[in-house]
């Protein structure tokens, strides 16, 4: 059973990715694929999902208008206890990370988080997870009896086109009451829009943790200026308040699609790569030859950025004059 994820009127990509992987797993397990859809007025989503699963379990309740771990858990405990799926897939997203661990405890179901590989042989699952910021992969197995819950890394499983299923929409009565909640949703808040819109740039020069100090940023900015590029960054630079949030490329920041993306001193955590994989050409500069960023780049330069960036800056000015 896949737990569908949606926010502000849109089904999120992870839902299709889980359904695609879920279908493959269900076929090898000889099981049916179901999808749980919680929300308010979500019939259009149910219609969109029914070609991807055998059953779409819809719990429609105005108290489910926005995500809240407390309401989600109540509904899912009832649904899962009734339907007894052998495997539950949840997104390893801001939403899934908030409810999957507690739901797994409540259901006494072993949970494997942030998986990038899931295989099944009879009743045995073998999983692949990443360690040390993506520098190492690990195969993992469950130690206890199923049913199991797996949280799936966004972008890890491609959406495969397969012949449509004729899914049945099953309406499930909501177990929620007007009983007070210990956790209450107030509102969504949008991050402030920066001065420069990095999503519109043809050339982005992006810096990461490797920049080491705010005082090293002007050097890269001058390089970016020399090629008519815009300065962007990965998460650690924003965490340290060296550049504003509007400059951040990645899952929790902006998704960018420049013609050329130059990643300087960025290790390449999957959250960052998710935001820049649509770039036409990626050039990565990093001193660590094993940095995951080189797997996401078209061209790689293993070098100390403090040695190479000043040369790049000066030479670009020179080349463009001549």
């Amino acid at each position: 059973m896949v737990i569908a994820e949606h926010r502000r009127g849109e089904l999120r990509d992870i839902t299709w990715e889980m359904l695609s992987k879920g279908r493959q797993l269900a076929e090898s397990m000889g099981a049916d694929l179901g999808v749980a859809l919680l929300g308010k007025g979500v019939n259009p989503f149910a219609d969109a999902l029914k070609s991807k699963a055998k059953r779409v379990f819809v719990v429609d309740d105005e108290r489910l208008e926005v995500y809240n771990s407390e309401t989600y858990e109540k509904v899912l405990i009832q649904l899962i206890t009734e339907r007894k799926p052998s495997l539950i897939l949840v997104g390893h997203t801001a939403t899934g990370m908030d409810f999957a661990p507690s739901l797994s405890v409540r259901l006494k179901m072993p949970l494997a988080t942030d998986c990038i590989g899931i295989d099944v042989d009879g009743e045995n699952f073998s999983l692949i997870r990443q360690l040390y910021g993506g520098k190492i992969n690990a195969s993992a197995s469950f130690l206890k009896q199923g049913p199991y819950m797996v949280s799936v890394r966004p972008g890890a499983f491609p959406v495969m086109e397969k012949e449509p299923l004729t899914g049945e929409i099953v309406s499930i009565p909501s177990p929620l009451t007007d009983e007070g909640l210990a956790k209450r949703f107030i509102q969504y808040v949008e991050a402030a829009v920066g001065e420069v819109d990095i999503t519109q740039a043809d050339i982005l020069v992006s810096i990461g943790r490797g920049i080491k100090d705010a005082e090293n940023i002007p050097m890269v900015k001058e390089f970016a200026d020399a090629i008519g590029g815009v300065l962007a960054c990965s998460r650690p630079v924003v965490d340290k308040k060296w550049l504003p949030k509007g400059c951040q490329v990645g899952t929790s920041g902006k998704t960018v699609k420049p013609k050329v993306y130059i990643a300087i001193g960025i290790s390449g955590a999957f959250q960052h790569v998710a935001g820049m994989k649509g770039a036409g050409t990626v050039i990565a500069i990093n001193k660590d030859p094993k940095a995951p960023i080189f797997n996401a780049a078209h061209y790689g330069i293993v070098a100390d950025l403090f040695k190479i960036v000043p040369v790049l800056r000066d030479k670009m000015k020179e080349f463009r004059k001549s």
Partner: protein
Amino acid sequence: MNIIVCIKRVPETTDVDIFIDKSGKDIDKSGLVFDLNEWDSYAIEEAILLKEKLGGTVTVLSLGGEDSNESLRKCLAMGADDAIRLTDPAFNGSDGFATAKVLAEAIREVPFDLILTGTQAEDDGYAQVGVVLAELLGISHAALVNRIEVQDKKVKVHRELEGGLEEVFEIDLPAVLTIQTGINEPRYVSIMGIRKVAKKEIKTFGTSDLNLKLEEVGLSGSNIRLEKVFLPPVGEGAQMLEGKPEELALTVFNILKDKGGLT
């Protein structure tokens, strides 16, 4: 406001060449530098900021061997009042669930209003301990928190979502919040600061002190086990450019002209 912060000491692996050890189940950690998990450094800072504003105490908890004292002392130097280390050879091999189980039993003995953890650890990246802990203690939680305002017997928190969006929740205390990086600016700890807390007692508790059974901890209490580790497969990978910086500059310039429309 009495706050508990759960922390972990982890090896620094960014920009370091890492190798798989002989067991094939982990990396070779000899020669690596260890430090407080990055997410946890934001969690402890947030706890100390709240204490400075509202009074109360900060107790820091970690599961680990004697080496973990180093990170616990760093937290004491930052301003935590007490440190507790949960240690037992039987804890080895604990996954996120078993770790949370041990933390939960230890926390039952300590009065608290709020628990902070990092959202995830840099090494194993489970991103589940804080939320599992909340459920084991039967209290509310929020993950990926990047802003906290304490109100009377409740907190208003911002959760970081995808694409620069945040969602705001009001949560009754007690609660567990898992802290996202960037929520504050963790203070610098000087060597002098560490020296000042060098003599401070760090209490230790093991399985028998915590009313835990052996089958509840370590591998036997865990849900998953890592079988082996390997280097991620290199996809098509990047075409590696080599040469002197001046030659590389020309290559980069040509790529920019060719692909980026640079004139």
